[in-house]
């Protein structure tokens, strides 16, 4: 870095004779005399803001806010329910019940970061669970390998996501409406396929043997959630796909003019959300041994709430998987604390509403405090 700069300061690059071939366009840039900048022109702000003002820091402080909220809930849980709350078994219970919401919320984080929204995830999970466990498919799975039903579920999820994506990106139907229509239609299709009956999948021995394992004492569905979260994090923060997601969500027109195929990328985001919904369907099957058209009701609202509480911008352009995972854990831990404390149902919902708002306000408060210091 420094060497390359000193190299250039000899001025040889100003030699214009070999102008036709420029290896590095920077070489071709006019030099600015060093005296200039040293003299005065550096904005007073520029020198000051090396530590603050960075985007990553803002995100960091939001995460701190969420962790504080989560710790508060854990504290309340420990005080009110003692060992019953603060126990490995109970934490595993919380994580198991987080798996469905968590997996779906990771997919939702991508869609929302990319400037969209997906109301159909719960219905798609129901559809995938039903489709994967039809008698015919279970038969094929028994004849071949249990992973066949995984394949079916993922294909159904991806297919539904593809339809969403195409309607939204190419058909220019606003995402809220397209996915609302998918919600209605997918659940109806699930009801039709299953004839409104639960489809038992108990005979799928291989499937349940697999999901019955507990590597390191941790349930397979929790591992699935962990893996999805990690893959999601890497995908969003470390790959070109993630970078494009931020660009598409932040300013689709600018992204398009920067050469990104915005339509294709948008479509892929919904496919991703559909696949995540399909994974949630597998968790449903693993936990309930059934495929049912009533799985995942209102899951979409919980997922969106978790994502937004986590700090992802509903308008797109900013997203965080870490925040989403924390948002999910806040929700499920809260419910767990309520259950352990035997509170009446209506009170739980009343408090849940208050906690949602408080979490958002606290985050904003923490972030804004840090900004002004």
């Amino acid at each position, binding site marked *: 870095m420094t060497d390359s700069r000193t190299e250039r300061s000899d001025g040889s690059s100003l030699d214009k004779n070999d102008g036709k071939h420029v290896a590095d366009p920077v070489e071709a840039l006019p030099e600015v005399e060093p005296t200039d900048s040293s003299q005065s022109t550096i904005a007073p702000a520029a020198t000051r803001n090396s530590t603050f003002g960075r985007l990553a820091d803002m995100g960091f402080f939001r995460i701190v806010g969420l962790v504080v909220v989560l710790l508060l809930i854990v504290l309340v849980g420990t005080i009110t329910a003692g060992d*019953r709350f603060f*126990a490995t*078994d*109970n934490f595993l*219970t*919380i994580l*198991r*019940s987080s798996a*469905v*919401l968590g997996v779906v919320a990771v997919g939702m984080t991508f869609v929302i970061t990319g400037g969209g929204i997906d109301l159909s995830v719960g219905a798609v999970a129901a559809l995938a669970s039903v489709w994967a466990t039809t008698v015919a498919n279970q038969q094929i799975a028994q004849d071949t390998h249990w992973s066949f039903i995984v394949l079916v579920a993922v294909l159904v999820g991806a297919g539904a996501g593809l339809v969403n994506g195409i309607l939204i990106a190419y058909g220019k139907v606003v995402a809220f409406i397209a996915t609302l229509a998918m919600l209605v239609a997918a659940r109806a299709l699930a*009801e039709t396929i299953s004839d*409104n*009956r*639960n489809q*038992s999948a*108990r005979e799928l021995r291989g499937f349940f043997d697999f999901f019955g394992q507990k590597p390191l004492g941790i349930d397979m569905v929790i591992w699935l959630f962990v893996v999805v979260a990690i893959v999601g994090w890497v995908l969003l923060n470390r790959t070109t796909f993630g970078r494009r997601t931020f660009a598409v969500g932040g300013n689709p027109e600018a992204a398009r003019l920067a050469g990104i195929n915005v339509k294709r990328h948008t479509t892929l985001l919904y496919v991703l959300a559909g696949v995540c919904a399909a994974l949630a369907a597998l*968790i*449903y099957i693993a*936990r*309930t*041994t*059934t495929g*049912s*058209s*009533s*799985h*995942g*009701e*209102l*899951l979409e609202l919980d997922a969106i709430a978790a994502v937004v509480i986590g700090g992802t911008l509903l308008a797109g352009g900013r997203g965080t998987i870490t925040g989403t995972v924390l948002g999910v854990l806040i929700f*499920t831990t809260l*419910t*767990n604390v*309520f*259950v*352990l404390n*035997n*509170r*009446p*149902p209506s009170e*739980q*919902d009343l408090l849940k509403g208050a906690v949602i708002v408080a979490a958002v306000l606290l985050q904003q408060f923490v972030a804004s405090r840090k900004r002004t210091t």
Partner: protein
Amino acid sequence: TSNDDSSDDEGNPNLDGGNSNAEAGSNDEAGDKIVIGFSAPAADHGWMASITDSTERVAEGYDDVELRLVEGTNDVNAQISQVETFINDGVDAIVLLPFDGAAMTPVALQAMEAGIPVVNVDREFDDPNAARVTVLGDNYGMGVSAGEWICNDAGGETDLVIGEIQGIASLPLTQDRSQGFADALGECGLEVANQVEAQFTPESGTDAATNLLRALPEMDYLWNHDDDQGVGVLAAIEEAGRDEFKMIGGAGSKQVMESIKADDSVLKATVIYPSTQGADGLKLARLLAQGKAVDDLVEVEVPREVQLYAPVVTADNVDKYLETAFES
């Protein structure tokens, strides 16, 4: 076919826990201190709210029972977690009214394997080993009762127009009710002309009924599966100014029974679906946990299955049932 908890025979709601039935036997005397977990779907209508309330009241009557009551939920995933929490806690028994019987089977099995007796209420598991006792309403029987009442009332006529307003169509219990209804009607050569779905709520009842009344400009009988939604159904019937048919309800809410008694509307009968199932479940769970048996039976163990009867309430016999009725 039906078996019944003792209290109903006396027409006396045994909702005050230990007191009312105390002289009937020793069962209500305090035993070991026990913890019972109770989980049910969201109490979003009167019948379901009554399930929870009556259970709670019965539990309060027992000094030896600590009831763990969790938020009703229509999300199987959440309900599974609730039961898991009960297992972690090591409660002495679990009373479970599943949102979806089949989906809750694995976790119920888990509880049974952990040595916690499970009492399954209303919506049945799909594995008999998942529950020690099953307390069932008779959904198929409900449909049959409603159908038979119509057959009797119709007196052999066969070209009658019959409407049906279901509850949530995707629930097995709804399908059982409709099946029983259709089968019973078939016996006397009748069939359902039009079937619409409501959601157990008054609003959905109004909507469903409004449209159904349009679809069937002339109707002879209407069966409405649920008295909660029935409030809305009746309002829609009044709104449309229709009175050429007879209506029969379901579940047996207090308001409906009062209306039947007063005979002031098209509503002539209702089929009871006891809302005290949860409370019955709790009582049985207590007996199980304390190693007792049902007093009025010779059997030394709590029976495997208790199926509640689905009688038809009409103006003639309404007084007998009015007191057990729930407020919708």
